[in-house]
Each structure stands twice: as structure tokens, then as C-alpha cells.
């Protein structure tokens, strides 16, 4: 390749597409069609690059120039910069929010330089719709090695030795599961990839499927060979149309090249993969519910005591069920060996974890870091902290099954076990940062509202417990909380956790219990002072500070209930009319509207 040659990568993840990546790709295509350029410039669509917030992203290889927030109008300038001599378009480079300097190469951007991208190694580098790209980056080499150099027992031994734990959330050791499935009696076995990523605030499974679908397929085929299955399923959310499309393309290409089907690579091994689109039920992430869903039934978890899915799974046959990321790790373990894999991470959690870092941080996106990294590294090192100088309040991990961790725990190394000990969990790996403008009671109510709606209704503790807890929380956020509500929430929460049938119920109270544990004073303020310090709930006493008021009258104009009155040279709010809609608070240009606590009666007297 002469040094005139270069590749222009255009991110085609869901985030960048919604930011307008498609018109950028087509105008690049148009510009590059000119004869001189056509020979030297390769244009490539890639999967998600992770840094969705800066999208649409365009990267020029081999240098690695990183252009963010590209618009179709910028395309001409980018193409001009490629030939005859490659220059950098300074204007489009990423600007570091802290130092305010432009950073030309993407490997130098803190968001990327602090990560260890192994599962995401190909995401954003290869074209997910072209198997040749995957093959060129050592794709399907692990399958070849597994089929021709290793026995099933050796593969399982490698997976066990690597210490890989299920990355779907619960963290069950993958090797043990594989072994149990292999040992289970029966001729017919199945492998299922769980891509029913239903947690609000998590999108890593989707990004892996969209950016590097073949790595998941390869992992599944190896799993099929190891446990003795002939058929695999990918259970993917129908709400992820792009992931579904790319999976169909990937399976068709793999079949064509002989990586799927009868007699894979001439080894005599038979395996095929079918794609099943989940119809939208959060509880179907639970293994027994997922299996029932593929069978065409209502996805309700089987009642206890139930045999493990590895013994009695799909259509009553032994079934191996793992998450997308778990399968994507398998080719790496086979190629590089279990020692390499186990060299990263903590004592009991090996390898890397993928988090979707979202919420109130400067840099949102998909990140991959070693297990055991400190929360501070994620929130401040990679995420750049809350934007606009706001104060950090908490991190919510694990979605509706997880909990909130306060600032005191920022230096805690995070892995499966430390998160569980702190009252949260790894869950699907969503990391949502919240700042001082977020009300913790409202966050708890929000998650419970979600789990309550998604509860399948089969067992009583979950069905009624989550409903009752939600009623209490709604009352508190409306300002009708009564003394004893916090204790009632804890009492019900502990029982729902203990007696529910499946993972949904046993983790549903986590957001409530963890916010009570770490942010009890916010609950107390809501109940006793009718005040929300984040000013999210419709609570508090609204008052106009006369010394700061500039008498513009905007608050009076916007008030729907006519609570803002005017006398001579000042405005004031009539408390009896105020419905706490916050319109005056939001519109005031000088911040003269104050929201204050109601003081308990004894004190004001």
C-alpha cells in the first residue's frame, strides 16, 4: 500500500445514523468517485465507535484522524484534505472539554486512551456487513483452531480456566455452565445467545451485534461444538432493527463461506443459527422465560423448584444460554489462551466489562474497561465528569435491578462481587451518572414504575409488592408522604427480594433500597419538609426574592393558575393558588424565584 492510500471510516451505529451519518456516507461516496481519489481512498461503513455523543464520527486511517460532529457540508473539506498529501482538518477535530485543546488522533483522546477494547476490538474498525473484513482481522481463526486442534473437553477447560463469568449480569461462571450442559444426558442440545437487552440505559449488546456480529456467531459455533449442540438461536429484541438486519446478513454470509451449516470447514461438525426476534417483554431476559418465549408461549419464568436450563431447557432439552458479550469473548480466549484472559481483572472477576456510560457526563458512549477499575476512573477519567460544573451526586449501575452508589463509593473497584455487596449489581452494565439536578426519590420511582409494569404477574410478592411500593413512592413525590413511609418501603422491599420467583422480583427493590440507604435525607425532606432539593418533584414553597427581582413580569405571564401577583413595586406568589408547576422558576432570567423547604410546624411557631 503506498502512503497515498487511506481508508475513511464512517460510523454507522444507531447513534451516528440518527445524527445524520447516512447523508455523510453518500456524499463521501459521491466525492470519492472522482478518478484520482477512487484508486487511493477506500470508504468503509463501520459499526459503533462508542463515542456516540460526538457523532456522526468519521475517522481517517492509517493515521487515525478523528473527526467528530461531522455535517454533510464538511465532506468536501475532508476529501480535499486526503490528497495529494494527507492533512488534518483541524476544525473538525475533537476538542477536549477540560483543556479545550483539539486532539488529532483518536488513540490520544482520554475517552479511548483509558479503555482496553478487546471485545469491542473490531467495533468501529470493520464493516459489519462484510465477512471479508472480519476474516481479515483474524476472524474465524478461533473456530478453525477449536475444530481442528482442540477437543470439546479442552475448550471447556480453557473457558473454565479463563475465569470468564456470564456478562449478562448475574456473573455465573461460563465454564461451569458449559460443562453442565455438555454432561447433561441427551442427543439434542441447543445454544442460545441472549440479546434481549431490555434494561433502560444499556446498549452494549446492541452495539456489539451492530458492530461485530461475526464475533458473536463464532463464539456460538465454538460453544455448539464444545457442548455438542447442532442448533443455535439468537434471541434479539425486535426493537433493534439494525442489529436484526446485520445478524441476518452475517448468518447468511457465514453459511455461504461454510462457517455455518453441514460439515463446517470440512470437519464434519454440523451447526446452524436461527434468529428469533423477541417481542418485547423485559422478563424474557430470564432464562426460563426466554426459553418459553422461543417455544411460542407467554414468557413467564418457571416456578420453583426448577431444573437448570442446562438440563431442561428449550423443548425440554439441555440448553446453553449465554449473553452476547460472553460469546464475543470466546474467540479471544481460544486464540490468545486462558492465561492471557485471566491476566486482566480482579481475583474473582476476570477480563473486561463493557459499560454504556450515559446520563450527566461530558462524554457519553460505550466503553470497555478491565474488571476492578475504580468508578472514579470511569466517571471522571473517561466520562469527563458532569458537564457545566454541576456537582456529582451518584452513579446508577445495573438498570432497574441495580442500585445507586453515592460519591463516597467513587473509589470502590467495581466488579461483580463489589457491586452486589454495595446493594447494586453489574446487571446489563448500564452506568448512568446523575448530578445535583436529579432527584433520587424520583429515580427510584422511575425504576420501580418500570419493573412494576414489566412484572409478569405470576407471583404475588413481585406483583403486589412492587405495586404497593410504587404507590408509596408516588405519594411521596406528590408531597403526600407520611411518617413511616420509609420504613414501610424497606419492609416491603426486603420481602419482595426474598420471596419473589425470579430475578426480576428479587432485584426490583434494589433501586429503592439503595437510595434509601445512601440518600435517606432526600426521602426525609420529601416527607417532612415537602421539599425536593433537585427541584424535580412538584414540591417546595415558591417565593420571589424581591432584592433580585428585575420586575420583568415573565413569571406572571407564564403562571397558569394566576398565583403570581403584583403590588406596587414587587411580585409575590400566593401559596394557595400555586400548583408548583415550576414555570416561573424556569423562566426567571435572573434566578430570583426560589424554591424553599416548608419548615415543620413546631419550628415556625
Amino acid at each position, binding site marked *: 500500500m503506498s502512503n497515498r492510500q487511506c481508508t475513511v471510516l464512517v460510523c454507522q451505529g*444507531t*447513534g451516528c*445514523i*440518527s*445524527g445524520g451519518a447516512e447523508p455523510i456516507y453518500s456524499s463521501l461516496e459521491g466525492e470519492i468517485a472522482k478518478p484520482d481519489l477512487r484508486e487511493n481512498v477506500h470508504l468503509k461503513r463501520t459499526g459503533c465507535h462508542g463515542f*456516540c*455523543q460526538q*457523532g456522526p464520527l468519521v475517522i481517517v486511517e492509517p493515521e487515525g484522524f478523528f473527526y467528530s460532529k461531522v455535517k454533510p457540508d464538511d465532506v468536501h473539506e475532508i476529501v480535499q484534505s486526503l490528497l495529494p498529501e494527507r492533512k488534518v482538518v483541524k476544525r473538525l477535530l475533537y476538542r477536549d472539554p477540560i483543556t479545550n485543546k483539539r486532539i488529532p488522533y483518536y488513540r490520544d483522546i482520554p475517552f479511548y486512551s483509558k479503555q482496553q477494547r478487546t471485545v469491542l476490538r473490531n467495533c468501529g474498525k470493520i464493516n459489519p456487513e462484510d465477512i471479508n473484513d472480519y476474516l481479515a482481522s483474524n476472524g474465524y481463526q478461533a473456530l478453525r483452531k477449536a475444530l481442528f486442534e482442540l477437543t470439546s473437553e479442552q475448550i471447556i477447560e480453557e473457558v473454565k480456566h479463563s475465569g470468564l463469568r456470564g456478562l449478562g449480569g448475574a456473573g455465573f461462571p461460563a465454564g461451569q455452565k458449559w460443562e453442565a450442559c455438555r454432561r447433561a444426558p441427551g442427543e439434542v442440545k441447543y445454544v442460545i445467545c441472549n440479546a434481549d*437487552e*431490555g*434494561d*433502560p*440505559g*444499556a*446498549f452494549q449488546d*446492541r452495539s456489539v451485534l451492530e458492530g461485530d456480529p461475526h464475533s458473536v456467531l463464532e463464539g456460538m459455533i465454538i460453544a455448539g461444538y464444545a457442548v455438542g449442540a447442532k442448533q443455535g438461536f439468537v434471541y434479539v429484541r*425486535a*426493537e*433493534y*432493527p439494525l442489529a436484526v438486519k446485520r445478524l441476518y446478513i452475517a448468518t447468511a454470509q457465514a453459511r455461504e463461506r461454510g462457517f455455518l451449516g453441514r460439515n463446517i470447514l470440512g470437519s464434519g461438525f454440523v451447526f446452524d443459527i436461527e434468529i*428469533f*426476534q423477541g*417481542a*418485547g*417483554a*423485559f422478563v424474557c431476559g430470564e432464562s426460563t422465560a426466554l426459553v418459553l*418465549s*422461543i*417455544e*411460542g*408461549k*407467554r*414468557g*413467564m419464568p418457571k416456578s420453583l423448584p426448577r431444573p437448570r436450563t442446562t438440563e431442561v431447557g428449550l*423443548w425440554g432439552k439441555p440448553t446453553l444460554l449465554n449473553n452476547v458479550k460472553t460469546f464475543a469473548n470466546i474467540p479471544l480466549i481460544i486464540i490468545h489462551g486462558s492465561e492471557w484472559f485471566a491476566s486482566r481483572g480482579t481475583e474473582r472477576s476476570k477480563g473486561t466489562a463493557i459499560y*454504556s456510560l*450515559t*446520563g*450527566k457526563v461530558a462524554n*457519553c*458512549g460505550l466503553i470497555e474497561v478491565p474488571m476492578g477499575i475504580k468508578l472514579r476512573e470511569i466517571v471522571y477519567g473517561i466520562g469527563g465528569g458532569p458537564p457545566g460544573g454541576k456537582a456529582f451526586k451518584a452513579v*446508577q449501575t445495573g*438498570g432497574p435491578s441495580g442500585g445507586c452508589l453515592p460519591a463516597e463509593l467513587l473509589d470502590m473497584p467495581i466488579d461483580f462481587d463489589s457491586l452486589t455487596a454495595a446493594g447494586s449489581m453489574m446487571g446489563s452494565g*448500564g452506568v*448512568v451518572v*446523575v448530578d445535583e439536578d*436529579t432527584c433520587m426519590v424520583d*429515580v427510584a420511582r*422511575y*425504576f420501580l414504575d*418500570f419493573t412494576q409494569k*414489566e412484572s*409478569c404477574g405470576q407471583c404475588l410478592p413481585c406483583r403486589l409488592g412492587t405495586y404497593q411500593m410504587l404507590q408509596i413512592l408516588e405519594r411521596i413525590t406528590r408531597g403526600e408522604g407520611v411518617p413511616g413511609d420509609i420504613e414501610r418501603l424497606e419492609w416491603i422491599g426486603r420481602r419482595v427480594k426474598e420471596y419473589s420467583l425470579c430475578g426480576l422480583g428479587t432485584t426490583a427493590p434494589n433501586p429503592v433500597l439503595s437510595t434509601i440507604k445512601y440518600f435517606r435525607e432526600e426521602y426525609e425532606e420529601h416527607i417532612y419538609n415537602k421539599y425536593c432539593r433537585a427541584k424535580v418533584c412538584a414540591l417546595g414553597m415558591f417565593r420571589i426574592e424581591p432584592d433580585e427581582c428585575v420586575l420583568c413580569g415573565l413569571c406572571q405571564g407564564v403562571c397558569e393558575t394566576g398565583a403570581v401577583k403584583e403590588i406596587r413595586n414587587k411580585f409575590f406568589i400566593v401559596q394557595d393558588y400555586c400548583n408548583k408547576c415550576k414555570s416561573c422558576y424556569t423562566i426567571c432570567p435572573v434566578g430570583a424565584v426560589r424554591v424553599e423547604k416548608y419548615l415543620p410546624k413546631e419550628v415556625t411557631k
Partner: protein
Amino acid sequence: MEDHLSEILPSYRGKRSKLIPILQEVQAKFGYLPEEVMRELATFIGIPECEAYSVATFYAQFRLMPLGKKRVAICRGTACHISGAPKILEATEKVLGIKDGETTADLEYTLETVACIGCCALAPCLRINEDVHGRLTPAKASELFPAPSTNKGEQDVQ
């Protein structure tokens, strides 16, 4: 209606496990699950009608009522919630004149909320059919739709 169904069914074997894929294809074709079609496909698979109904009502994807031409899905994921999704929903409800889960009388828009569309970095966001719109404010969200007055006018015509 029967013509459409006879296009869909032959590609499936009449097996219980194909119930959800068939329902998905029927919905893709009609936009919802009409009652007659449900009866027919229950017979085709060989299960009681009530079981087909129980599956169709369990999953969030399936609709028993016709949908609007444009499906507006407001994301209520965590990241969107803390960045102001409730305000976006409120603004959209106002501009379309319908509540969450309803369809405009002219069958133009259906408004729904979804758990997460996975565009958390662009929060708050909403999706109209397949197109995602991110980094919204209540004002920007309202601009995505025709003004409420014209919408209402069409309803009156209906």
C-alpha cells in the same frame, strides 16, 4: 385480508413455536392483529384461540387495535428520564392532542413510550417509525409534528 394471510402462512409449518414469528409478520403486514386473522392463525397452528390471545397480549410489541401511519415512540430510558423525557412526552402529547398509547382520530400518529431505544448518548430522544431524533428539548420535539390546530382540523373532518 384472507389473501394476505394466505401469503404469510404457507412459509411456516403449523407449529406452536412459530406463533410469535407469525404474529410479528401479520402485524408487519396489517399494522396490528385483526381478530379474524387471530382466529385463523390459531386454527392453523392448532391451538385454542384464547392461547393465541394470551400470547399476543403478553408482549409489548403486539397491538390489537389499528395503529397510526407514524408511530411515535418516546424513549423513557434512564438517561432520557433524567434529561427530561417526561417533558418531551408532555410536549408531544400536547402537540398531537393524544395521550400515551393512543392514536389520532385520522390514524396519522400513534404515541407510545418505550423503555429504551439505546441512543442514550443522545438523550432525550424519540423515534418516529425508524428515524431517531436525539438531543431534544420540548420545543424541538413539538417542531417535529404539524401544529396542533391543523391536526385537530383533520380530526374534525373525520
